[in-house]
């Protein structure tokens, strides 16, 4: 593969995010639409940093009630037990299925927290114009995009547990308010990852080289 040292933006070109066709827009600020697929052209995702920060902050706020409030309320013969996410992990652990406890712990607690930290780090490093470890940062972004969906695991577990255990008056399970906040964390961090533009990671290095 041959590579020039230029990025599309430096060459005055815009790559279509949908079909990858390169266009040379008449006006770089208003590139218009892709001639092949009709998608709106953008050299970089619109207000990428601001949108991503807003979504990360919103997700971080939801992360607290998601972990503090119960996700499941189990009623057995009149007495009710409430379980938070960590409570569910502990329950799985004490009933002997520690591999499952580990999967839920990673997917529900560590992945969302890791995503918030990783996205904040990417945003700060881009804003500070970092030119170091671009490749590693791009890889980190790819990882965030890839693992994000797995956090939805607990929402599915809760849904099917609630749907199946409706054995009134013997035993019934109801969803707690934590589920909504937890689902919100997953959805918000997924949209945040989508609104972040990984090309920004590389822009600082390009600017540096061409201004020197």
């Amino acid at each position, binding site marked *: 593969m041959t*590579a020039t040292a230029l990025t599309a933006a430096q060459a005055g070109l815009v*790559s279509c995010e949908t079909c990858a066709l*390169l266009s040379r827009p008449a006006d770089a600020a208003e590139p218009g639409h892709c001639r092949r697929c009709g998608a709106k052209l953008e050299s970089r995702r619109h207000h990428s940093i601001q949108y991503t920060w807003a979504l990360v902050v919103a997700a971080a706020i939801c992360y607290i009630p998601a972990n503090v409030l119960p996700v499941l309320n189990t009623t057995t013969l009149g007495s009710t037990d409430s379980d938070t996410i960590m409570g569910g992990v502990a329950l799985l652990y004490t009933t002997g299925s520690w591999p499952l406890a580990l999967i839920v712990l990673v997917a529900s607690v560590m992945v969302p927290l890791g995503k918030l930290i990783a996205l904040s780090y990417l945003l700060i490093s881009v804003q500070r114009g970092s030119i170091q470890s671009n490749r590693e940062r791009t890889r980190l972004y*790819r990882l965030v995009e890839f693992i994000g969906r797995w956090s939805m695991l607990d*929402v599915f577990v809760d849904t099917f547990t609630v749907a199946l255990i409706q054995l009134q008056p013997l035993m019934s399970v109801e969803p707690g308010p934590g589920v909504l906040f937890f689902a919100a964390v997953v959805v918000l961090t997924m949209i945040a990852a989508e609104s972040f533009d990984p*090309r920004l990671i590389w822009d600082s290095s390009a600017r540096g080289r061409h201004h020197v």
Partner: protein
Amino acid sequence: MTDPGETVACPECDLLQHLPELAPGDKARCPRCGNTLASQASEPIDVPLALTLAAAVVFIIANTASLMGLSAVGHHASTTIPGGALEMWLQGEMLTAVVVAFCAIIAPGGYILFMLTVLLAVRRPPAPHWIGELLRWADSMQPWSMSEVMILGILVALIKIAELATVVPGIGMYAVGGLVVLFTAIMITFDPREVWKRVEWTDYGAEAVR
């Protein structure tokens, strides 16, 4: 005006580069950030079309058949995917129910529907330009289509409930497992570049902007 040829910009780092001709099975990676730019499948339309048709059938089974059944002291219960979302709704968690329905039913169903339309329409070139819009919709459904997360969620729920009562996995659960395999196979064998090569260009475009 640019003649695109096979010059592309990496979608992840924007580096301009020339894509060489690829033989079936080849992959092209960006030399700067390592992103996979293109991979050449041997049958980029017909194989994914067959797989998508199979996925449509399996999707219907997955959404209608019982995921698992439970029996405890004379009680019997079973649930389906729409049944799970409905129960969440009835229990007052409407927003969560919508998220579950979207990730478990609407996104995978939409992905299958849009892909099926695109793959059928593209078989006779020149392909109509509205395919672009549909392929974009299929693309945006893909991250939200969570069959593989759901199958793990069903398994965890199954093992959790097995502590309390006897649970039996149903046909729906196996169908969700089948969907996971089919979706992966579609993504591996489908090459969107092949679709774009056959698409009729839209008129309004970057050049027309003043």
